[in-house]
């Protein structure tokens, strides 16, 4: 019986827990707290937080090659399939009408991607500090946090820097939730009050045919100029065509409900499997988390400055606030724009105007991800 008791003891968690695993379980619990009590992107952070806990229980091996989370990671994230399916669902969920009515707001979505590249540079600068040794690929994956788009960040880091995915995903989703805190001071600092009060003219109606042709147009331009962005752009435009074509409603409904929900559960658990102590508890993670705030701030600033340029060029028709929505973080950033706009003029509803740059930001960061993949994907 003695031997048996020892064997039994060795099967307990207590006998096998390290301090790192305990700490990571605490991290998982904090993520759950933020998701549930503070409503930080709960759709992703609940599964990620729970996945982080499961992954760090010793003996269980949930994130190992024969564990559920390990299988999920292998099948759906290593292959890039889950982020692509999320994009399919997002396409089916998104109304691009505001962007079609005012296509120039795409430039705001372009400008906000500056945050990606500045963060990339920031990561490379960190290499001058001891303990940091980011490759160009790592830096690019970290930079994409500035894209403020979760699935894009997961997709790119699964291709370029899988071992950093945990920190990158946590940073991306956490800061997306912090958009209402990070953005307003930057917006107010960079835009004079009178420009913030600009009332924009109402958006024109968009015809159904325009909505059908839009995804095909976006697909075509991407195919011609940056096919490496196709995995994400192709899926979001496919989902959007399902939505707008009007002839396959049952497929569109499934893509925007059950399919995206199932994939979201699995994506979150799979990402959680990358929050294992040994790979997450490094000084690099701290660097990534710091760079993340930076990334969002730069993205917001460059979007806002582009907004001011458009304000000038259009002779004052554009309220520069909507530039802040260019970081994506749909629809949070657009709501922040609306709120700040109302603070400056209680009758100025900018929500619809901000939706244009907001969805443009999604396209913009998918394009940036494609570019980084094209230039860095084949090796060093």
């Amino acid at each position, binding site marked *: 019986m003695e031997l048996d008791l020892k064997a039994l003891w060795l099967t307990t968690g207590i006998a096998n827990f390290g301090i790192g695993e305990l700490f990571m379980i605490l991290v998982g619990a904090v993520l759950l707290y933020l998701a549930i009590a503070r409503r930080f992107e709960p759709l992703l952070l609940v599964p990620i937080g729970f996945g982080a806990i499961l992954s760090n229980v010793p003996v269980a091996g949930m994130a190992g090659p024969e564990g559920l989370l390990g299988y999920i990671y292998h099948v759906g994230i290593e292959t890039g399939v889950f982020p692509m399916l999320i994009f399919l669902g997002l396409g089916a969920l998104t109304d691009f009408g505001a*962007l*079609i009515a005012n*296509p*120039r707001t*795409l*430039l705001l*979505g*372009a*400008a906000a*991607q*500056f945050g*990606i*590249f*500045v963060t*990339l*540079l920031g990561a*490379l*600068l960190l*290499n*001058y500090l001891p303990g940091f040794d980011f490759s*160009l690929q790592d*830096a*690019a994956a970290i930079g994409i946090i500035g894209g403020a788009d979760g699935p894009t960040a997961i997709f790119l880091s699964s291709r370029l820097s899988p071992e950093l995915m945990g920190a990158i995903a946590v940073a991306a989703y956490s800061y997306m939730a912090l958009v209402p805190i990070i953005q307003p001071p930057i917006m107010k600092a960079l835009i004079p009050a009178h420009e913030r009060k600009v009332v924009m003219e109402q958006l024109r*109606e968009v*015809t*159904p*045919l*325009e909505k059908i*042709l*839009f995804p095909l*147009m*976006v697909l*075509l*331009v*991407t195919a011609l*100029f*940056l096919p490496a962005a196709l995995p994400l752009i192709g899926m979001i435009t496919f989902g959007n065509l399902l939505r707008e074509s009007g002839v396959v409603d049952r497929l569109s409904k499934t893509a925007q409900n059950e399919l995206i929900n199932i994939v979201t559960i699995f994506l979150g658990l799979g990402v959680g499997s990358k929050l294992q102590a040994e790979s997450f508890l490094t000084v690099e993670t701290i660097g990534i988390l710091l760079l993340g705030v930076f990334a969002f701030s730069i993205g917001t600033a460059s979007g806002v400055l582009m907004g001011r340029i458009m304000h000038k060029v259009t002779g004052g028709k554009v309220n520069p606030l909507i530039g802040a929505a260019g970081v994506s973080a749909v629809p949070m950033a657009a709501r922040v724009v609306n709120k700040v706009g109302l603070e400056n003029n209680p009758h100025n509803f900018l929500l619809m105007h901000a939706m244009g740059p907001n969805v*443009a930001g999604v*396209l*913009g960061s998918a*394009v*940036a991800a494609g*570019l*980084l993949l094209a*230039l*860095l994907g084949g090796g*060093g």
Partner: protein
Amino acid sequence: MSLAEQLLAGLELTLTGMVTVFILLSFMVLAIGWMSKLAHRLAPPSRSAPMGARSKSDTAEDKEIVAAISAAIHRFRSARG
């Protein structure tokens, strides 16, 4: 690759990246513009505007219906309680 070389490569990447993103999205701006013109020629918005209008009034109608039903329930409830 030394850190300096790496940083240089990063700067190059930044330049290339931002230029590409702007070119690509500018093309999309143009392409969407053309597309809208084409779409308006193929199916003039006048045709779709009333449709939009109709769908709006549908929504309005729906709201009326909901209002009617909730009014009925309200009356019922105030009669009761």
